[in-house]
């Protein structure tokens, strides 16, 4: 039995190692996570900056469970693919009379040995990874805590137990699969597949239908915000709209791999230019066959790639949003209203304030009107162009403005989202401040508020100095601050922030229609709109970094796990397909096709199959991220996002080249 086990392991060394390495990589991630949550000192440190002390461990444990569940499903799938590949080897053992029970023991022992190797390698890599993960988490959460390699006996034992159990179950499943497969099928597990021939009329019809569905889904996803807005305004079912787009996307993607791409490849194959070039002909012919025969796994990996890129991209976008939002909310070290200013000076003293930047605004109700009807009524902090220009000197992110006559610029929250919905109904918006019958034309819409959005009740409106002078409305002064040593004021700022001081403004129908002046105060009766009287960047940064840093960390780990799973599935499937093509490659070599050309064809075939889920996954994820990006006011990718994309593409390409290399191993026709 020992010799049989050694022979069997050796014979399938490549795929066994591949399986072990992929499982080890996943185990390493799980160990590092578990070891982090087991480290009390670390959890105490992250607890101090989180919204609640248990937030981080709770999120990490949820992530751990999700990853473990995903990995179990993934290992089951990969194991299933690999045992089918070995069916003929095992069939020979059965043909020679080996009892099924003995084979079952062999398969379970083999799986347990692989499990042991996985546990050994995975835990070792996990210990190394733990320091890296801690560094990453601390950096993104803006903490200064550091640690060495993390060893947690309980985490190691728990994961070793779970993994050995998983591998034992895989071994038993393999044994059951063998026992339930008739010997004839075991000996001929992959009956010769019907070659992909010329496409029938039905296939052409299905191709058109698939492309129509997919195209429709993409158009729908691209216009999702505006369509959703239209549907909700007209009383249509929004879930139905989203469901239709989703179903069309899924069915269209499946049809794309099952029918459309093979058919399109078939059309290309018939071109004389392609038929005269063996490399193009063979690449397209093989691609057509592989795509059609592997349509299920390509569909699955496209979904996985979509999830991977969405998770990673969303993580980056949300993190960028937090950084951008922080600056948009509070531009300097702090921003207050006039009431907030008194409290700040009282609490901190003037000596701590390096610079105070005052901004005079007038608070007025306004009515926005588009070309084809009413817009809305809300409160505006009206700012003169000269005051705006003065603020730009201390707040460089503000866009430069030029205004003439009745031109105005409006600053609103969620600019991008609104421009996809009701704001897009008109290209020109007129704004009336009814109390003084002031009319301006909004020529530009921005999301950048002078001194930061926290200081405003709702919107800001920048007008020419002349319009501002004429406007009769209550003054609402805002103040921006630069502190001398914000780091040393941590406690005082936290105490100020904890006061949660709020200003209110009247928001009654009469005030909005200009029949009454807008009033402000700490506690007003009737309909009111509120804002923070004191906005402080330090405390906000701490909470934001902790929350969004953790979010980015979770997104990265999920993305990496999904990416490894996607790459491994494609690798194994392509390896199996590639090895089945070995005879054809030998024939080509015997016919005199240069080895370099055969290599090129194999690399092109393999990379094309890898590229398909990546391309369509990126397209799908791009649409999801675009939607998220619009909701989050288009925070952009930043350098970190580009780095993520580069790392993702690099890992994915590595999987592709590794597959091509494994397929090409031992290809030379000469002895």
């Amino acid at each position, binding site marked *: 039995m020992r010799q049989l086990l050694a022979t069997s392991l050796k014979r399938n060394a490549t795929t066994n190692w591949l399986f072990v390495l992929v499982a080890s990589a996943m185990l390493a991630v799980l160990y590092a996570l578990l070891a982090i949550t087991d480290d009390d000192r670390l959890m105490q440190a992250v607890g101090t900056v989180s919204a609640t002390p248990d937030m981080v461990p709770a999120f990490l444990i949820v992530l751990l469970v999700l990853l473990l569940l995903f990995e179990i499903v993934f290992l089951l799938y990969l194991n299933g693919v690999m045992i089918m590949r070995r069916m003929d080897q095992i069939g020979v053992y059965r043909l020679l009379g080996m009892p099924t029970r003995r084979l079952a023991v062999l398969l379970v022992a083999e799986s347990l040995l692989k499990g042991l190797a996985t546990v050994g390698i995975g835990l070792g890599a996990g210990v190394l990874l733990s320091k890296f993960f801690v560094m990453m988490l601390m950096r993104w959460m803006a903490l200064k805590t550091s640690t060495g390699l993390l060893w947690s006996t309980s985490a190691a034992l728990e994961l070793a137990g779970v993994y050995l159990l998983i591998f034992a179950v895989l071994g038993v499943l393999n044994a059951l699969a063998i026992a339930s497969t008739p010997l004839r099928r075991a000996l001929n597990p992959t009956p010769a597949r019907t070659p992909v021939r010329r496409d029938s009329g039905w296939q052409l019809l299905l191709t058109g239908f698939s492309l129509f569905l997919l195209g429709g889904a993409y158009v729908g996803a691209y216009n999702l915000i505006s369509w959703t807005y239209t549907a909700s305004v007209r009383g249509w079912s929004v879930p139905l709209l989203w469901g239709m787009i989703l179903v069309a996307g899924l069915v269209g993607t499946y049809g794309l791999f099952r029918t459309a791409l093979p058919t399109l490849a078939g059309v290309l194959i018939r071109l004389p230019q392609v*038929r005269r070039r063996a490399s193009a002909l063979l690449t397209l012919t093989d691609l057509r066959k592989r795509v059609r025969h592997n349509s299920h796994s390509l569909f699955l990996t496209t979904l996985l790639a979509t999830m991977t890129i969405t998770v990673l991209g969303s993580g980056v976008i949300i993190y960028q949003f937090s950084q951008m939002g922080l600056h948009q909310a509070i531009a300097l070290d702090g921003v207050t209203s006039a009431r907030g200013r008194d409290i700040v000076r009282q609490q901190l003293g003037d000596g701590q304030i390096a610079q105070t930047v005052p901004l005079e605004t007038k608070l007025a109700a306004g009515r926005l009107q588009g070309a084809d009807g009413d817009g809305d009524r809300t409160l505006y902090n009206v700012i003169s162009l000269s005051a705006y220009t003065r603020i730009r000197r201390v707040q460089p992110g503000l866009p430069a403005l030029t205004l003439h006559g009745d031109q105005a610029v409006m600053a609103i929250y969620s600019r991008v989202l609104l421009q996809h919905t009701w704001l897009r109904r008109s290209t020109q918006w007129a704004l009336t401040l009814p109390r003084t019958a002031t009319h301006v034309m909004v020529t530009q819409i921005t999301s950048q508020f002078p001194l930061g959005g926290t200081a405003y009740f709702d919107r800001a409106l920048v007008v020419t100095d002349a319009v501002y002078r004429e406007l009769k409305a209550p003054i609402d002064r805002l103040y921006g601050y630069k502190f001398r040593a914000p780091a040393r004021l941590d406690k005082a700022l936290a105490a100020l922030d904890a006061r949660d001081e709020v200003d209110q403004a009247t928001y009654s129908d009469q005030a909005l229609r200009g029949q009454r002046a807008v009033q402000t105060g700490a506690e007003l009766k009737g309909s009111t709109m509120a804002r923070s009287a004191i906005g402080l960047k330090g405390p906000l940064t701490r909470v934001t970094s902790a929350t969004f840093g953790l979010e980015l960390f979770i997104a990265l780990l999920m993305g990496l796990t999904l990416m490894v799973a996607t790459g491994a599935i494609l690798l194994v499937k392509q390896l199996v397909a590639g090895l089945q093509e070995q005879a054809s490659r030998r024939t080509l070599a015997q016919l005199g096709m*240069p080895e370099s050309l055969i290599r090129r064809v194999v690399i092109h075939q393999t990379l094309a199959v890898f590229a398909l889920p990546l391309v369509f996954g990126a397209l799908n994820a791009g649409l999801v991220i675009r939607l998220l990006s619009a909701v989050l006011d288009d925070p952009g990718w930043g350098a970190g996002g580009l780095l993520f994309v580069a790392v993702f593409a690099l890992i994915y390409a590595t999987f592709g080249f590794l597959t091509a290399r494994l397929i090409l191993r031992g290809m030379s026709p000469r002895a």
Partner: protein
Amino acid sequence: MRVVKVDHLTKIYGHRFNRVAALNDLNFQVDAGEFVGIMGPSGAGKSTLLNMIATLDTPTLGDVWVAGQALSTLTDSEAAQYRREQLGFIFQTFNLLPDLTVADNITLPLTFVPPRPTDMAARLAHVAEVLGLSSLLTRYPDQLSLGQRQRVTAARAMITRPSLILADEPTGSLDSMAATELLQYLTKLNLAEDVTIMMVTHDAFTASFCNRIIFIRDGAYFAEVTRHGTRQEFFDRIIDMEATINGGGRRRATTPRD
């Protein structure tokens, strides 16, 4: 003109205490336009010889010359070029690419590297006509009978206008009718197109379509039989020689030609 010269060809597998000589100082020649059969018992070295001529294996000693070119000196890319331009293959298992049409299978060797011949369509039409494949060009290999598949292999072998066609048990997978039909086509190729063919076979009936049979045993030249008279007489002489070679002790019937 001499197309093939096998010169003291020796191939030894294994090393030190476990050496097996698959070919042992083998010598013979094939002239242009000949249809030569290679026969011998199992393990005689027929496949090794074919692999040497096809540059799929390298000799331990000696060399093979094809169209004046010593094969042992070829680099990998030169060997590929030699197989592409000088050789045509007919395999027992056909080795057709199942996802290509008959036409694409036949023209495949012409499309590997530039310059691609401008008369590809004319060449295809010609070989298809010679081998009776004109109506089958748009089909796929699995839509053909075994005999038709082997004719496609033969068409693929001759479309490059090689100096030599190597046929390895070409009738091994065919029934007797298909085998006879294929052999008639090969004879037609040999006579009408003046193609030089070297065919390895176990079967005396198949061999009887050749002009000359070289018998090898234990990796060495044993005898040869040249066709005179009718095919039946030739067949009888092949059978006699097979009996001799399998029986063992008899002396070589003829000496190799220089």
